[in-house]
């Protein structure tokens, strides 16, 4: 028999499809055809597979080899099919028992000497494999840590085709080291104790972390905006296992494990440069649809420094994911939905020269320039920002203090406690953070105290705030109440939230 088949996974975004890799070896002139809409990297698999087979002292069939990746209509890309093709060819050439591979998923790129190299998207592929009822999956050793997150599928890590062949022929295999899944946050390099002074910005960061409120930090260069933003993940609660799986799956597709361990439980932070493009921000790509910065920041922080410098449209492309918590990217090869629930942190200078703070004596910008600068942040986007916080230059008193500020661990303990209060309050609803309360519920069930509402209604009458702004203020005031232990937001909480919103509409 010169026919064999095995399994692999094709990914379209986070969705995996089980792909049957069939190989037929027929009499005829030596030929190799690969069917099933392969892209360039996949078409090149022929030469990798052939070299790997020959260099493992196996025999390459000098016949007509037809490889079919089914379903044929599904576009396939990347090098992760190499291993499956290699094993199926050897099986069709009758050197491996066909039954031993027909229900095994093989993932991995081949080096010319037969080593198995790491590939992107192992975790989402395994999730799909499990859904399709696959019990055994062979993955590259380099992806073992990530693959091990997947429960319910036997993961076999292999570093070389020879190991795979020995396993398939004799059943022997080296047991890979058990990966320690301690799920503990690794030691944190950043800590809020490093930030000198800035009580208002600290409070705003705490509120943002607790209620999931988006935040804009405005201040001159060197005041500590970036420092504060980078430390927000350290006060966020650690991810739950479900959340961590989602985060790791997205990062796996993007192949960004250089900066982030696949078993990390720390909320991710992504800080794209302000020259970033729209596609890099929301995701895209013609052949392989990759997640953008907003999906990589899923369950974490998306920090954009120098936000007004962003080309117009880049920030506004975030409006839809901010609203929906997901982003759907449509391309000719299909539609892909990535999760995108992130905490948006924007940082901006007050003006082009950056010195328009305090009395603005050193500022060299004209008043029109100053007005224009923050005006680049579009109205609809600013409307989704709950807090606009001035980060003033650190004064001599704060700098001279030798005692450090509150540490991240202390703040995080408060954040976790306050989130617990909120999630208990919302146990009957399908949201868990204060920032997610729908406006209808705000006007009916979740109203602040009466005098606080009167204050807000007065502000509304004076046209100091809009109806939308009113809702935002109430949401932040709930978070303040949770932190301070008030059952219902008081006038104090609401006024504080009003101040944090920046008073007037920007």
């Amino acid at each position, binding site marked *: 028999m010169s026919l064999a088949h095995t399994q692999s996974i094709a990914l379209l975004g986070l969705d995996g499809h089980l792909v049957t890799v069939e190989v037929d070896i027929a*009499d*005829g*002139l*030596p030929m190799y055809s690969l069917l099933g809409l392969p892209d360039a990297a996949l078409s090149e698999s022929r030469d990798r597979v052939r070299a790997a087979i020959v260099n493992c002292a196996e025999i390459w069939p*000098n016949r007509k080899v037809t490889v079919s990746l089914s379903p044929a209509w599904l576009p396939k890309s990347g090098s992760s099919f190499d291993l499956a093709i290699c094993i199926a060819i050897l099986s069709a050439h009758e050197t491996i028992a066909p039954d031993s591979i027909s229900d095994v998923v093989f993932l991995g790129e081949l080096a010319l000497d037969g080593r198995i190299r790491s590939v992107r998207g192992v975790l989402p592929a395994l999730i799909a494999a499990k859904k399709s009822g696959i019990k055994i999956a062979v993955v590259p050793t380099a992806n073992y840590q990530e693959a091990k997150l997947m429960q319910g599928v036997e993961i076999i890590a292999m570093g070389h085709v020879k190991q795979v062949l020995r396993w398939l022929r004799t059943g022997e295999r080296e047991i890979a080291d058990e990966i320690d899944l301690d799920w503990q946050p690794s030691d944190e390099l950043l800590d809020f104790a490093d930030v000198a002074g800035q009580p208002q910005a600290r409070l705003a960061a705490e509120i943002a972390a607790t209620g999931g409120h988006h935040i804009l930090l405005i201040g001159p260069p060197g005041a500590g905006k970036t420092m504060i933003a980078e430390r927000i993940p350290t006060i966020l609660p650690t991810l739950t296992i479900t959340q961590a799986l989602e985060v790791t799956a997205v990062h796996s597709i993007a192949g960004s494990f250089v900066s982030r361990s696949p078993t990390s439980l720390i909320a991710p932070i992504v800080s794209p440069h302000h020259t970033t493009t729209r596609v890099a921000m929301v995701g895209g790509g013609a052949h392989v649809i990759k997640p953008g910065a907003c999906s990589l920041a899923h369950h974490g922080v998306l920090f954009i420094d120098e936000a007004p410098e962003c080309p117009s449209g880049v920030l506004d492309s975030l409006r839809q994911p901010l609203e929906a918590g997901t982003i759907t990217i449509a391309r000719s090869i299909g539609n892909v939905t990535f999760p995108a629930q992130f905490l948006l942190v924007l940082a901006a200078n007050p003006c082009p020269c950056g010195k328009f703070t305090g009395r603005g004596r050193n500022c060299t910008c004209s008043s029109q320039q100053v007005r224009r600068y923050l005006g680049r942040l579009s109205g609809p986007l600013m409307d989704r920002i709950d807090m606009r916080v001035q980060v003033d230059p650190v004064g001599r008193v704060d700098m001279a203090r030798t005692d450090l500020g509150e540490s991240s661990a202390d703040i995080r303990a408060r954040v976790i406690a306050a989130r617990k209060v909120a999630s208990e309050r919302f146990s009957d609803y399908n949201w868990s953070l204060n920032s997610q309360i729908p406006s209808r519920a705000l006007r009916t069930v979740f109203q602040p105290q009466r005098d606080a509402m009167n204050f807000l209604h007065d502000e509304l009458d004076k046209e100091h705030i809009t109806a939308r702004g009113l809702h935002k203020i109430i949401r932040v005031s709930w978070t303040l109440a949770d932190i301070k232990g008030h059952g219902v937001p008081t006038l104090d909480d609401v006024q504080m939230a009003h101040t944090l919103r920046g008073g007037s509409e920007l």
Partner: protein
Amino acid sequence: MQRKRNQRTGAFGEEVVSQYLISQCAEIVERNWRIREGEIDIIALYPSGIFAFIEVKTRSSVAFGHPFEAINREKAHRMQRLALGWLATHGCLGCEYQIDVAAVLIAADGSHTIEYRAGVL
């Protein structure tokens, strides 16, 4: 010198394949039929009445790859054109025919093996 040796190797391979075909009850119609477009190594007539046009590749080592790898798509198509040319000039156009390839590997000790593939197009 080298060229002469190669020619001898080739002729040896063709002879070996001819013997093999005769042992298979085929009749050798012509050897080394040559026109401007190229050459057909062996033309044989099977007992079933099918003409076979055979390309023989002979190698004394696989250092330059398997003999069959030297036959690419273009070469196979040229063989088909030549086959049609032969049939036309011999008044057999419309006869059933096929293109075969044979690989002869000569080992260091002088022994040889034949791989024969019929009907490759």
